[in-house]
């Protein structure tokens, strides 16, 4: 691939990521609006998020950004890189399993979005907006992680070109950056 085509491919990926950023921006704006209306309720509901598992997932996802960056670095030097992609995939799967565990725990307690809210420790008014936002934002994010896992699994199995790996890496880092903001917002009582 010529350097011009490579530059165009990279720019195209950035434009795609910018559009993805706008998708999440809408959700962050929605959170800001509900936070303005119900600051105390959102903060109180956020205390019921599983802070330990959320933090563990933050460590996992940032580690996965490091492993994919290392894979790209090694691929450029012509060294073996597939094990590093595989490590990234494994960390992504670990993230999803932990997320699913959190969901199961919340849903079994009635900590559920919208009309399904039946959490004994909180009244629905105001608090339910946090729960709906929590499931929507982390759910859409988890779907993005799943898409990344699928792409990287193919690359790990078949090998790929450096440029493709770079583009997949950009996407993976973007998903990591989204989580970097979701974590303080939804787990650490952010937005205050």
């Amino acid at each position, binding site marked *: 691939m010529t350097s011009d085509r490579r530059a165009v491919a990279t720019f195209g990926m950035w434009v795609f990521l910018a559009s993805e950023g706008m998708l999440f921006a809408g959700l*962050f704006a929605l959170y800001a609006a509900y936070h303005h209306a119900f600051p105390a309720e959102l903060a109180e509901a956020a205390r019921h998020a599983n802070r330990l598992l959320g*933090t563990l997932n933050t460590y996992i996802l*940032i580690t996965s950004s490091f492993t994919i960056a290392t894979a790209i670095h090694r691929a450029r030097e012509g060294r073996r890189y597939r094990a590093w992609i595989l490590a990234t995939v494994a960390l992504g799967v670990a993230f999803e399993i932990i997320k699913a565990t959190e969901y199961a725990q919340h849903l079994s307690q009635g900590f559920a979005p919208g009309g399904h809210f039946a959490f004994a420790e909180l009244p629905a008014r105001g608090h339910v907006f946090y729960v709906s936002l929590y499931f929507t934002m982390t759910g859409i994010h988890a779907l993005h992680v799943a898409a990344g896992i699928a792409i990287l699994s193919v690359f790990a199995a078949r090998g790929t070109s450096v440029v493709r790996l770079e583009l997949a890496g950009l996407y993976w880092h973007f998903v990591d950056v989204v989580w970097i903001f979701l974590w303080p917002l939804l787990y650490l009582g952010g937005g205050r």
Partner: protein
Amino acid sequence: MTRLVITYAALMLLVTISYLLPAVAFPIATVKAILVAAIFMELARGRTTSRLALGLMVVFVALLVVGVLGDVATRYAASAYVH
């Protein structure tokens, strides 16, 4: 490779600080995002066009959040949400 390792170590440290001091977790998240974008996504030595796409996204995200917040802050009383 050293750059990657140092960045990773810094990110891990920042996550730990955020966990211990949640009050400053959001500003720290911004620092972490800048680190990931600059080093892992290679914007620090990347092309201007990529930086332009990211810069425009940041501007539009800020416009959207500020616009929505400005709207709900001035148009409705909080009681309007109570049902």
